[in-house]
């Protein structure tokens, strides 16, 4: 570590250039002259497209160039001598530029010597500071193409027109590739530099091909069909076409064919060479297979999603994986994943045969591939892989010996990785244990949706079967769901109750209703609790009853202590703590819920204090068990009372409606007054604002207040008997604002935080007068969703709604890219055992992780609460 290099490995330079004909011939192992591939014996023809000098793909043959066998030989280029030069499609842009910027007679660049020198000097300067010279080169080109008469030979320059795909017209007459090549050959080196090319590595005439490199056979392997017939690669087909036309061209020319035929053949050769490079050039029909399928030529191999870069290098496919739709199953543990039977029968795990497991493995092999837990393959120590079939399964089971490996099917309890894209944090891939289930979807406990950010509207997820003992052990210790309940992002649980879990426990623990033994046992049925505590009291008929708090206490660990405010807390000025009239102060003593309501703050994902305490004080296993029991209890609790929502729940009494209308009317009046004072120039501008800004802000504020007021009115008429209020207050789903909009008033629609102003000149819609500043004319929706919006309101609402959609679409892509850049910049940093943060060279980045060396996962919601807690538990009282 003594001499640290500045970067692990530095690439000193990358050179890009064109292949010169000389270089193409030099790297070629053989010229290719025959269009045929194999002779009658199926042996590659010499100087044909499958010549063994180009490398070998058939086993048994040896390469004539490097004498390597198939697999060892990397392949070697050959070449085709083109009878006449053709244009390379990829360089059309540069060719056109050069034709326009150089003289048609003397080939010099069309710039005065002084001007040329000026550009050259600047170019050197730019190169020195390491900037891109693109702008300067474009300028030079622009200047040169403007010149109409050559400053060197006084030749008048003609207009060059480019016609798709590969034709150049000079004053309407076609320039042949030979002519273009001749012009390029005569451009002096210095002039080439001005146009941004390096004459050593890229002479312009090399963009007109006279010799075509033939890619090695390893690049275009032929495949043998079952019928024994050979099927060639698309590239080979294209090369065959090129050679055929090339030959015909030569024969015709030697025979002195008329110019018309020669030109046709030349064009045909150009077409084939063009499509060999790129079969999607606009202006020409793509070359097709006999079946009508367009050929996949060179650029098609690289381009696009399935191309070499995005498809093969950045993204690859893996074995031992499965993907299907996910659906919920609250009866599974959070550590489990329900795997459909067909997937379990296809994916395998290797098991080495030992004295301990031979009998079990024999059973698997005997079960074969059709009976579930079976085996699909048997591996012998010599490396042979035998498929287990119905024919050989009994035979194989008998032959099984120690040291063999059986690839047995996935069964209950196997550790697999489960993943949902986009994998944004470590909790996007977690280890689950398999539970084989019928049907065709992956099943997971809805409580693990938050870390994956999954829902069940058609989401698909991937599963990976681990293939070694080490990986399974590592996954189980580090990646299992229970080990990831606490998030390193904020030091709290990311897994917890959602939606119905929260409503369910809220309903169970809030009310002091009497729960009979029957109901109590029913609710706890799915947990491992089999005994009830002594009843809370007896009904008049002598039957014992229990409270919801008691039932919930049964699933709490026996030694749990916690105190916190619930989500329903109304944040009074002075907190009465235990005596909270709202029952919003939760007290858990020795695993018993004494006071308070269980809601989002207690068991919710991201917020749940109860899971948090259990995991940090007892352990992840107890935490997982609690979440399992909690979700199952909650589902049963919500089924006991039921929770539904209908239009009737948005009803508000008549007097409330009147009050709301009054508030809205008053607000509108206030807005009119503001407008009047604005028109009379009486309005005082706010500091730092123009008058126009001031009136807009005041109106927005007035109307916003009015909306809130209507919400309060509606809210005061809807109590906790309303299921929407229950959901909003407990934090299960939705907010009071949502309810307000449904029942009272939707409120101001805004675009970029301002009232809606776009539309016609001076007005939003023809329904209003020009210059109307009133609330209706600028998107204030007085109606509620329930009462229904009038047409103009509906239109403004659509405008506001559209902005929301566009915003989310833009934001996700932007934040995704931001995240990617951050991850790429930070991915190699590592926290060492001495708590320093270092990069791969060993250079320090932080002397102590986060400057305090605290693991955020183990902190209490990133607050220094831990210390208070320890002091509290030691001295057994509250310490400031």
């Amino acid at each position, binding site marked *: 570590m003594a001499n640290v290099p500045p970067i692990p490995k530095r690439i000193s330079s990358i050179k890009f250039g064109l292949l010169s004909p000389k270089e193409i011939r030099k790297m070629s192992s053989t010229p290719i002259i025959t269009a045929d591939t194999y002779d009658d014996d199926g042996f590659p023809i010499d100087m044909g497209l499958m010549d063994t000098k180009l490398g070998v793909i058939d086993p048994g043959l040896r390469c004539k160039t490097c004498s390597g066998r198939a697999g060892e030989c990397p392949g070697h280029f050959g070449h085709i001598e083109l009878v006449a030069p053709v244009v390379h499609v990829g360089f059309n842009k540069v060719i056109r530029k050069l034709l326009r910027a150089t003289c048609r007679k003397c080939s010099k660049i069309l710039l005065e010597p002084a001007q040329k020198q000026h550009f050259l000097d600047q170019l050197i300067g730019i190169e020195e500071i390491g900037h891109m010279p693109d702008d300067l080169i474009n300028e030079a080109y622009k200047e040169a193409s403007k010149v109409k008469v050559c400053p060197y030979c006084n030749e008048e320059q003609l207009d060059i027109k480019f016609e798709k795909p590969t034709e150049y017209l000079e004053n309407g007459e076609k320039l042949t590739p030979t002519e273009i090549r001749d012009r390029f050959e005569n451009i002096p080196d210095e002039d080439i530099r001005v146009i941004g090319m390096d004459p050593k590595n890229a002479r312009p005439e090399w963009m007109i091909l006279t010799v075509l490199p033939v890619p090695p056979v390893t690049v275009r392997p032929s495949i043998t069909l079952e019928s024994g017939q050979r099927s060639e690669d698309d590239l080979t087909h294209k090369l065959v076409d090129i050679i055929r036309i090339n030959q015909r061209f030569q024969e015709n020319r030697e025979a002195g064919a008329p110019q018309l035929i020669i030109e046709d053949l030349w064009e045909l050769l150009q077409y084939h060479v063009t499509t060999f490079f790129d079969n999607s050039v606009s202006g020409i029909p793509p070359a097709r297979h006999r079946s009508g399928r367009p050929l996949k030529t060179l650029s098609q191999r690289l381009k696009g999603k399935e191309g070499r870069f995005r498809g093969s290098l950045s993204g690859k496919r893996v074995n031992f994986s499965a993907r299907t739709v996910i659906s919920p199953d609250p009866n599974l543990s959070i550590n489990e994943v329900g795997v459909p039977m067909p997937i379990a029968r296809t994916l395998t795990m290797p098991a080495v045969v030992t004295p301990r497991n031979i009998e079990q493995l024999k059973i698997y092999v005997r079960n074969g591939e059709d009976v579930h837990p079976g085996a699909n393959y048997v591996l012998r120590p010599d490396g042979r892989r035998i498929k287990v079939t119905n024919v050989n399964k009994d035979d194989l089971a008998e032959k099984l010996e120690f040291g063999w490996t059986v690839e047995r099917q996935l069964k209950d309890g196997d550790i697999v990785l489960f993943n949902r894209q986009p994998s944004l944090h470590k909790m996007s891939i977690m280890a689950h244990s398999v539970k084989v289930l019928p049907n065709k979807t992956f099943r997971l406990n809805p409580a693990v949706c938050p870390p994956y950010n999954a829902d069940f509207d058609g989401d698909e997820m991937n599963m990976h079967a681990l293939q070694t003992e080490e990986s399974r052990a590592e996954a189980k210790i580090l990646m299992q769901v229970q080990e990831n309940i606490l998030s390193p992002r904020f030091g709290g649980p990311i897994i917890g109750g959602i939606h119905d879990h929260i409503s369910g426990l809220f309903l169970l623990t809030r009310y002091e209703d009497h729960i009979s033994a029957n109901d109590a046992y029913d609710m706890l049925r799915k947990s491992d609790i089999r005994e009830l505590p002594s009843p809370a009291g007896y009904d008049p008929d002598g039957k014992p009853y229990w409270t919801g708090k008691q039932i919930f206490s049964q699933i709490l660990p026996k030694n749990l202590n916690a105190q916190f405010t619930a989500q329903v807390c109304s944040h009074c000025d002075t907190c009465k703590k235990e005596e909270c009239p709202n029952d919003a102060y939760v007290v858990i003593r020795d695993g018993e819920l004494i006071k308070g309501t269980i809601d989002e703050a207690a068991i919710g994902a991201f917020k749940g204090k109860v899971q948090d305490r259990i995991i940090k004080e007892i352990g992840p296993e107890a935490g997982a068990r609690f979440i399992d029991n909690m979700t199952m209890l909650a589902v049963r609790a919500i089924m006991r009372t039921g929770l539904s929502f209908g239009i009737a729940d948005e009803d508000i009494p008549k007097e409330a409606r009147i009050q709301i209308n009054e508030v809205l009317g008053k607000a509108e009046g206030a807005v009119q007054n503001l407008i009047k004072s604005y028109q009379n120039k009486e309005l005082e501008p706010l500091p730092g604002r123009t008058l126009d800004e001031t009136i807009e802000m005041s109106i927005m504020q007035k109307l916003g207040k009015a909306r809130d007021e209507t919400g309060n009115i509606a809210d005061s008429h809807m109590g906790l008997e309303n299921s929407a209020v229950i959901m909003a207050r407990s934090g299960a789903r939705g907010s009071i604002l949502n309810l307000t909009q449904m029942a009272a008033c939707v409120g101001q629609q805004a675009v970029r935080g301002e009232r809606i102003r776009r539309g016609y000149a001076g007005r939003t819609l023809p329904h209003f007068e020009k210059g109307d500043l009133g609330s209706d004319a600028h998107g204030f929706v007085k109606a509620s969703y329930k009462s229904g919006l009038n047409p103009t309101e509906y239109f403004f609402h659509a405008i506001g709604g559209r902005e929301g959609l566009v915003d989310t679409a833009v934001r996700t892509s932007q934040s995704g890219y931001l995240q990617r850049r951050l991850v790429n910049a930070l991915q190699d940093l590592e926290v060492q055992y001495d708590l320093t943060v270092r990069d791969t060279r*060993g250079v*320090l980045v932080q*002397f102590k992780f*986060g400057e*305090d060396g605290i693991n955020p996962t183990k902190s209490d919601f990133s607050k220094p609460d831990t210390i208070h807690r320890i002091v509290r538990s030691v001295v057994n009282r509250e310490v400031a």
Partner: protein
Amino acid sequence: MFFIISGGKAIRGKIRPDKFFEYFIFGGKDLTKFSLLDHESVPKHEIMSEGELKSVLSKYSIEKEQLPKIKVQDPVSKEIGAVVGDVVKITRKSQTAGEAEYYRLVIE
């Protein structure tokens, strides 16, 4: 024509533009000679002694080159007169730890 107040006394005179800052004195305080380090957002920077440096390097068991870097041209390096090869100790306020120490090797 400029008015310059020096020690509470006003001086009146013609000033050559290139000499302007030499006279920039206010209330007896020479405003051209303020220290960068006086600004509240600039943490304390000091050049470490040989012995101090040795103990830091051995604490993290690293060579000098493995420290984070700071350029000599950096205004703070100039201010404290650090030269290439020095190690600067930076004591900053930290949101998490109250106060945190950081070390940077001065490079070209």
